[in-house]
């Protein structure tokens, strides 16, 4: 299991010691042209999560390649966004010769008006444009499993689940939207059950590895995403309140795994799909499935 940041939730250049606590750094979504993003107010808090309408603010691929990418820690994944299939393929082509471990295709940003439809088409075009591993980033929509299958069929080597969903917050006095844009992407605790369901469904529907994210704030949340079928976990909103979250959540996850009798997080991936699990026999069945001797691992 690797611990990553969720795209758009950390800048490794301004917070290098936070990024150092992760196994892989994921960039904010890059588009062909620079984007100033949406007008302020661009963030709001609710009782159950936060809303953002940052609007893919980024320096554009030219400035990104010259000024940003060379200074980022490795391994690095680049999140790619756009408004047409051509936008995605252009960036994929330009990343081809770079030291980039994978490309995450942001197929699901709720904060731009002209997001591309047909994720499968974008993935297929990107697949033809690059040899790098492609992760398709999807939102927890009702048809997320079909979208995941389409992405897999088109050549995605992995899935990043999940992006935010649209939410609205109204000002307590004026009853007008807090965000200048109106609605924004809902992240944080409210997203967690949706993320779990999406990871669970996509683990069943596809064979590709999944980076699970959405409302992870404790080791237990990471454990549940792994059990639902994620093989890696990404941290987003939690980083805003706790820049120490990577080390804390890693330690909490280790304790959770130990409590369930596992030494290695990889052994629990997909455990939720095993029939009639109980805490006691979960371990032996998952161990058998993976052909791993979890008890021996625990001892070490």
């Amino acid at each position, binding site marked *: 299991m690797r611990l990553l940041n969720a795209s*758009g*939730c*950390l*800048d490794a250049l*301004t*917070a290098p*010691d*936070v990024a150092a606590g992760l196994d892989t750094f994921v960039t*904010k979504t890059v588009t062909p042209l620079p984007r*100033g*993003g949406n007008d*302020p*107010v*661009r*963030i*709001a*808090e*609710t009782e*159950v*999560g*936060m809303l*953002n309408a*940052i609007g893919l*603010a980024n*320096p554009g691929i030219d400035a990104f390649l010259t000024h940003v990418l060379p200074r980022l820690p490795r391994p690095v994944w680049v999140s790619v966004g756009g408004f047409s299939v051509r936008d995605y393929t252009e960036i994929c082509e330009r990343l081809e010769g770079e030291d980039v471990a994978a490309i995450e295709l942001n197929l699901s940003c709720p904060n731009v008006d002209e997001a591309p439809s047909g994720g499968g088409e974008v993935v297929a075009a990107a697949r033809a444009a690059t040899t790098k591993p492609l992760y398709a980033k999807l939102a927890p929509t009702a048809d997320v499993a079909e979208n995941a299958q389409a992405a897999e069929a088109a050549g995605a080597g992995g899935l990043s689940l999940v992006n935010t969903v649209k939410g609205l917050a109204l000002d*307590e006095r004026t009853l007008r939207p807090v965000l200048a844009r109106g609605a924004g992407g809902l992240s*944080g*605790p409210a997203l967690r059950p949706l993320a779990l369901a999406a990871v669970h469904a996509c683990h069943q529907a596809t064979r590709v590895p999944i980076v699970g994210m959405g409302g992870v704030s404790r080791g237990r949340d990471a454990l549940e995403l792994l059990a639902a079928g994620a093989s890696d976990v990404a941290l987003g*909103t939690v*980083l*805003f*309140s*706790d*820049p*120490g979250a990577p080390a804390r959540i890693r330690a909490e996850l280790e304790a959770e795994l130990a409590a369930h009798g596992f030494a290695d997080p990889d052994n629990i991936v997909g455990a939720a799909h095993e029939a009639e699990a109980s805490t006691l026999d979960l371990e032996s069945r998952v161990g058998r499935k993976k052909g791993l001797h979890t008890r021996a691992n625990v001892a070490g």
Partner: protein
Amino acid sequence: MLTRRALRVAGSEVVGPYTLLRVERGKLDPGIPGQFFMLEVPGRLLPRPMSLCLATSSELGFLIDPIGPGTRALCSLAAGETLRILGPLGNGFRLDVERPLLVGGGIGIAPLPYLSERLANPPAVLGFRTAWHAEAAALVPNAEVVLEPTYVTEVLPPGHDVLACGPAPMLEAVRRLTPNAQLAWEAPMACGYGACYGCAVEIDGELKRLCVEGPVLAAA
């Protein structure tokens, strides 16, 4: 290192409509006036940015205007409770000025008591909505106070190096009068350390994060 510290609440006082929240300082560096801290809020997802108002050898003080759920919760913290604090963050005021004049409006006076102390009590001009709000002026030595409908920009003495904090319209007006002023701006912030881009503003055609490049910016 971006490390939050858990600090005990020492107490709080009512100052007009505001609350002065005092926390035990522990090993926390108070930073430069104009820098800010992210204060954890009990029961809320995101921390809230607050300027440091006062620093003694044993305590840090934050002057808080209860305008929403986060600030209201911070104002009702009781002595003995703990909260986690991240900071100091961002860029504060440059203190190497010859003839400092502090200018503040409303809750924007929050960083001025600490700034005043560090500059050996220079003159200050403070504007408030009502006499009740103006009770906070007692925290700033050498202050001339004006109440609406008079604005601070109507009484600014010439020939000073202005260091200002207040609502955006006040800062805009101060900027027009004194092009060299140092101004402390505000924007909604989720993280305070450059991670979320919630605070980004366009300055000279470039996107800048106020929590990283500010909150204090040169006016010109």
